[in-house]
């Protein structure tokens, strides 16, 4: 396949960072050029282990996801019946959570766990890239930081979904959806922590803010806390679950959040640039891909054709 300029640049950077020698470089380039041009053909023909083939998230990220997952739902379930106090389901739901005498303690304790998870995450995502910069293997395109390319990807993906483009864009380790989701969650988290603290420590906020702002700030927080919670819950229910459970190809669920691995098929489909890096970093992956493509007679290099010819003549 012929790589786009952006993909070639990603591949080039990766080979430089991994100090790939010329022989290996040629092998990688040969393999890539021998792949069919249509990525759909590639990902539909690779063999994938449902619980994941390619390393994606380290154990810290997985723990943080688990913490966020558990704390978020617990916080939502203990908090919602208080906000929707006059809804028909509020009273029984609140009783289910142990009544307000219990749920208020749960809510605060779990909030503390959530803040711990947030700090833990900040430490992880700071130290990781710092270490990579030091080792000279840092690539900003491989991080969650939004870039202009994401806007282009978003546009291209919409064009593809609406039938105005032949293929989905080549996306990086984190695609535009994941970046939006991540920063929405990060922002929401911050809003929840600040607004929550303004309920728990109103006197503290009143003492540090100017008198003219105190009431407005508190009102803003009183509105923000439930609205943000509701928005987050809806995003989880309608979007996150869609993307990780319900979207075509993901049903019933992805195992990445537990195993830290992504399936080969998914990586090629939605994170093709990251897959190129995987090819550079992991000789075994190249081996696998070559074998799989060869076994399905999808490699269009000269060797394969010769082999096929020989096979045909012998049969």
């Amino acid at each position, binding site marked *: 396949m012929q790589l786009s300029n952006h993909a070639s640049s990603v591949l080039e950077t990766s080979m430089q960072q991994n100090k790939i020698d010329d022989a290996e470089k040629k092998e990688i380039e040969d393999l890539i050029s021998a792949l069919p041009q249509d990525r*759909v*053909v590639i990902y*539909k*023909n690779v063999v*994938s*282990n*449902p*619980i994941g083939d390619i390393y994606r998230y380290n154990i810290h990220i997985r723990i943080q996801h688990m913490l966020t997952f558990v704390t978020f739902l617990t916080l939502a379930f203990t908090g919602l019946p*208080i906000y929707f*106090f*006059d809804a028909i389901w509020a009273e029984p739901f*609140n009783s289910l959570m142990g*009544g*307000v*005498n219990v749920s*208020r303690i749960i809510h605060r304790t779990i909030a503390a766990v959530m803040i711990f998870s947030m700090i833990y995450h900040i430490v992880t995502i700071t130290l990781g890239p710092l270490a990579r910069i030091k080792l000279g293997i840092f690539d900003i395109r491989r991080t969650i930081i939004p870039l202009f390319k994401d806007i282009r990807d978003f546009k291209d993906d*919409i064009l*593809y*979904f*609406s*039938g105005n483009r032949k293929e989905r864009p080549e996306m990086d380790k984190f695609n535009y959806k994941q970046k939006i989701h991540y920063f929405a969650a990060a922002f929401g988290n911050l809003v929840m922590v600040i607004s929550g603290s303004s*309920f728990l420590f*109103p*006197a*503290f906020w*009143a*003492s540090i803010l100017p*008198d003219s702002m*105190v*009431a407005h700030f*508190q*009102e*803003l927080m009183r*509105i*923000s806390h439930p*609205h943000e919670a*509701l*928005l987050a819950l*809806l*995003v989880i229910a*309608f*979007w996150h679950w*869609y*993307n990780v459970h*319900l*979207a*075509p*190809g*993901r*049903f*019933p*669920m*992805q*195992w990445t959040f537990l195993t830290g691995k992504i*399936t*080969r*098929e*998914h990586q090629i489909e939605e994170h093709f640039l990251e897959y190129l890096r995987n090819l550079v970093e992991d000789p075994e992956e190249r081996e696998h891909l070559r074998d799989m493509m060869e076994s*399905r007679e*999808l490699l269009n290099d000269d060797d394969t054709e010769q082999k096929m010819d020989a096979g045909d003549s012998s049969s």
Partner: protein
Amino acid sequence: MINKLTIIALFINVVLYSNMATASFDDDEACLMCHKYPNMARITDDGARRSYYVMPEIFANTVHRNVPCRDCHTYINELPHKKVDTGVTCNTECHSIKNPATGKPFSHKIIYDAYSKSVHGRKKIETSLENDKPYCITCHTNPLYNPKEEAPPKHIIDRCVLCHEDEKFAKQWYKHTSRRINEVKRSSIEIVALCSSCHEDQKLIDRHVKQAKIDERALGKKFPVAVESYKHSFHGKLTKYGFTKTANCLDCHAEKDNYYKSVHEILPSRHEDSPVSKTNRVETCKRCHIYADESYANLDPHPTSYQEDNVFRYYTEIIYSLVGDFALAALIGLSILETIGRRRDGVAWRLLHGSSWRRKSKRGRDRKI
């Protein structure tokens, strides 16, 4: 046969009568002569049905059982009596009951005077909007001693009579003291319900707001939304769920000193002696929020999003709703677009062969596109 029935009837009558006699009070003034009849009632000029039936066995278990009728109904001077215009007022001195502490005739005068000076103070008979204010009996009925107890527990009375000898006396004291110990304060939920019975009445609120405008008289800013906004505040929500440590109406609007008196002395927030007035607010917040200061007292305990009440909240709410609706529509829209758009990838193929656990099925093996 007839004789037998007569005897049985007589026997039943005697039993019933004796029961009634033990439970009833001393009707020295012979009021029950007429008021014992259940049909003792009339329809007032306003069309309201009023019953004047007194059930002696019930009255005998109420806290006023020892007060003769005419101690309160002082205007009754002859039988049959004339039409009653004024009714009972609660500041009347009892002639028959002495205050055991002072030896003087008993009365509710202290609390009545305190109440009269409060914003709720009114006369018994009022015709203007004053009539909306609560009179004593709006909040206080003539309660039974201990509605849950049919009779004082035997094991307690058994102990009392060993010294106090007279069982009737012991039972009276038990009823008097146990009631006051059992029901020292109304619960927060009861207090909110009680205040709400008037302050949540939209018609009442409307006519007072209207009249205040005509009179160009100041009315509390939160008066029209008092209950609604309280219910939407943290204080209100937690109270609703039975949490008792959070503020109910009286925790802020009544003075901290002598709760039982101060709840009768409620003043509007514009009155400088009110605990929620601008000058006293900080101290009132400090009753619970020990770190409260001037700045803290700016927080609104009755928040609403009405434009006339809080413009900032009103617009914030609108912006948040728009952002929320937009985000939701965008997310669902994108999901639908993606599902439809990816039909080209083959949804059926994906369900059968997608990289989920279904790939473990044999159907996914050795495929080629």
